[in-house]
């Protein structure tokens, strides 16, 4: 009797588990997020479940800057999740390792802007669905600019005049939070995009070939020196102790006039004052032709070895095809759309400036720099040296030499 009961229970459990397996399909997702992306996983899960109740997304969310690459290293050895969510620059990094599925010709790519498809392409094949974009440049407090008769600078001389005027008026010219060393890396890359990569698109390749170096490149040295310009015109004694939200609040409160940053700061601005009026311009370069930087951001990648290929395609179809979902994500992250026919509804006072630069074709893709010199292990390490130099712990020559010394780690 006992044996019969046990066999019966086992059979019932087996039938139940088989039934559940057929009904539900779990798709594993590794999401490398920036702080502004937090919560989009819930929006996506809800939208996917609404359209495909049989698909369940199992999310693992990590910080993109700190943990995404280590996780990818780990998973490449043990088996990748079905979907990875990274940045557009990850397309080149991981497609070159043959771990991403080729998405070329997938119907859902028609939902994305041509620029998005281009940013997700590596060696002629599409490996990533780019979902949104950021803008990077100098955010400025419009009221301060207006009250002091300041206009958007085009040259370094213009910028110097603005800094002088602000200092005379006892207004801190630049808001910074160098506690976050990544912010030094980010602004240095912004400078380099306009002063180095816009002039020599293959600078990184030349660097690896030993034809150029930081120690001999005047343009790159100038980019490093811009950090000093900013450091000399910010709250020097505090910046290495100040975190972003507190620093951003000061720009909104009128305690500083400008901040070299990206769209990720907008959330913070609105948290302090939803009516804050701000604009954006490119940090002036040496030749006076700096462009506003556009960066393809959140990018969905599919594992080359996924066993849930159809389900992943359905998820990508929802992400690119559900306009309400896309709009909700753009509104939450305060970013620009890369999906056709979706207009975010959040107030963006800097949009007028973006449109003006776009109309003059003064927009440049951040990946011209990111695809030349990798972030992890190179740009972020250089940023640490720049911080040491600013604090007087390293000479300028030693800082350049340190960048040259990690040449072998510079390839994305």
């Amino acid at each position, binding site marked *: 009797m006992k044996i019969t009961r046990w066999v019966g229970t086992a059979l019932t459990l087996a039938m139940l588990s088989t039934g559940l397996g057929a009904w539900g399909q779990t798709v594993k997702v590794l999401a490398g997020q920036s702080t502004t992306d937090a919560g989009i996983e819930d929006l996506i899960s809800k939208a996917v479940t609404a359209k495909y109740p049989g698909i369940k997304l199992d999310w693992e969310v990590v910080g993109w800057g*700190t943990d995404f*690459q*280590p996780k*990818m*290293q780990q998973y*490449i*050895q043990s088996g990748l999740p079905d979907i990875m969510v990274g940045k557009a620059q990850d397309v080149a990094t991981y497609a070159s*390792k043959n771990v991403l599925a080729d998405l070329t010709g997938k119907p859902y790519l028609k939902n994305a802007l041509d620029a998005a498809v281009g940013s997700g392409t590596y060696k002629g094949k599409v490996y990533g669905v780019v979902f949104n974009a950021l803008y990077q440049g100098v955010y400025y407090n419009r009221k301060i600019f207006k009250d002091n008769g300041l206009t958007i600078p085009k040259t370094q001389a213009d910028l110097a005049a603005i800094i002088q005027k602000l200092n005379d008026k006892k207004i801190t010219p630049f808001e910074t939070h*160098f*506690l*976050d*060393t990544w912010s030094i890396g980010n602004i240095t890359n912004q400078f380099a995009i306009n002063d180095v990569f816009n002039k020599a698109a293959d600078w990184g390749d030349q660097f690896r070939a030993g034809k150029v170096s930081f120690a001999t490149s005047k343009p790159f040295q100038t980019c490093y020196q811009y950090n000093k310009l900013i450091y000399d015109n910010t709250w020097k*004694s*505090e*910046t*290495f*102790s*100040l*975190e972003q939200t*507190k620093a951003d609040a000061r720009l909104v409160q009128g305690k500083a006039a400008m901040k070299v940053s990206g769209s990720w700061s907008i959330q913070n601005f609105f948290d302090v004052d939803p009516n804050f009026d701000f604009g954006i311009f490119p940090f002036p370069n040496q030749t006076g032709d700096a462009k506003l930087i556009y960066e393809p951001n959140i990018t969905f990648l599919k594992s080359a070895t996924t066993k849930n290929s159809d389900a992943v395609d359905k998820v990508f179809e929802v992400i690119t095809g559900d306009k309400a979902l896309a709009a909700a994500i753009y509104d939450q992250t305060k970013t620009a759309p890369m999906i056709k026919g979706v207009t975010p509804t959040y107030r963006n006072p800097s949009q007028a400036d973006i449109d003006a630069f776009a109309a003059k074709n003064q927009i440049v893709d951040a990946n011209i720099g990111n695809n030349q010199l990798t972030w*992890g*292990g190179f740009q*972020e*390490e250089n940023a*640490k*040296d720049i*911080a*040491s*130099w*600013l*604090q007087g*712990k*390293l000479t300028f020559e030693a800082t350049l030499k*340190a960048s040259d010394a990690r040449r072998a*780690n510079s390839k994305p």
Partner: protein
Amino acid sequence: MHTPTGFGPRLQSLSLVLPGLVVFTVGLVIPMVIGLYYSFTSWDGFTPELPWVGLDNYLKMLGDENVRNAWGFTLAFTVLNTIVQNGLALLFAVILDSGIRAKKLFRTILFLPCLIAPLVAGYIWARMYMDLNFMLFGNGDTVLMGLLIVNNWQWVGYWMLIYLAGLQSIPPELYEAAQVDGAPRWTQFRRIGAPRWTQFRRIPLPMLAPSITIGVVGITVGSLRVYDLIVSATGGGPGRSSMSIIYQIYNTAFSGKQYGYGSAISVTLIALLMLIAVVQLRVLRRREVQQ
């Protein structure tokens, strides 16, 4: 004494040891051997190939300024932390072992911080320093002091309990004997307050030697492995001013995609940890008094 002989008792002994041996081998020995192997390769952590480079990683380490800096910071942190934390823990233990009032309350207050995760502690203190305009973390010259304050705030209570247990396990007969032999009344510090150093040196200090061994070795090893506090408090900065060796290993192996080189740095850390632990145990155990 009867010693079991023959296959049966041996099998029985082996079956008792085997689970621990398997866990030790799988969890410790095998990863260490694999790590050692990686240290002789230039593996980036991604590719299936592990290119053999012999001793190149170790030679590279000798000239690596960043590794040298990380070791410098870690050793400074370790030495200062071991001295300060042991000293404070012992001091608080002696005070709490005396006749002061509300000792349970003080013990609880001192112990509570070690229940907080170091990541959270680092974050809280970074915010607090910032809000109080006390910029210890923002300057390369003061960041070590700032981290020592946080680390000691968090762990002094834990080590204090070890010392307190040691003090409370000293047989009262020793104090009674001291009293009978005419030692001054204040040598009975457990009741009337903290003793003077000369008296403290003669009775409780030798009896505390096992606790001191645990404290010194534990704090030294813990300090050499400091990581999570630094991640949340300073991120290794400003610049590289608070980059610990474990943080350097993590950055090198993962962000820097130099898994082989990171493994080589790990090997030197493990070697140093073992060396320090062995030396400390030998030196300190010689001073221990059998109760």
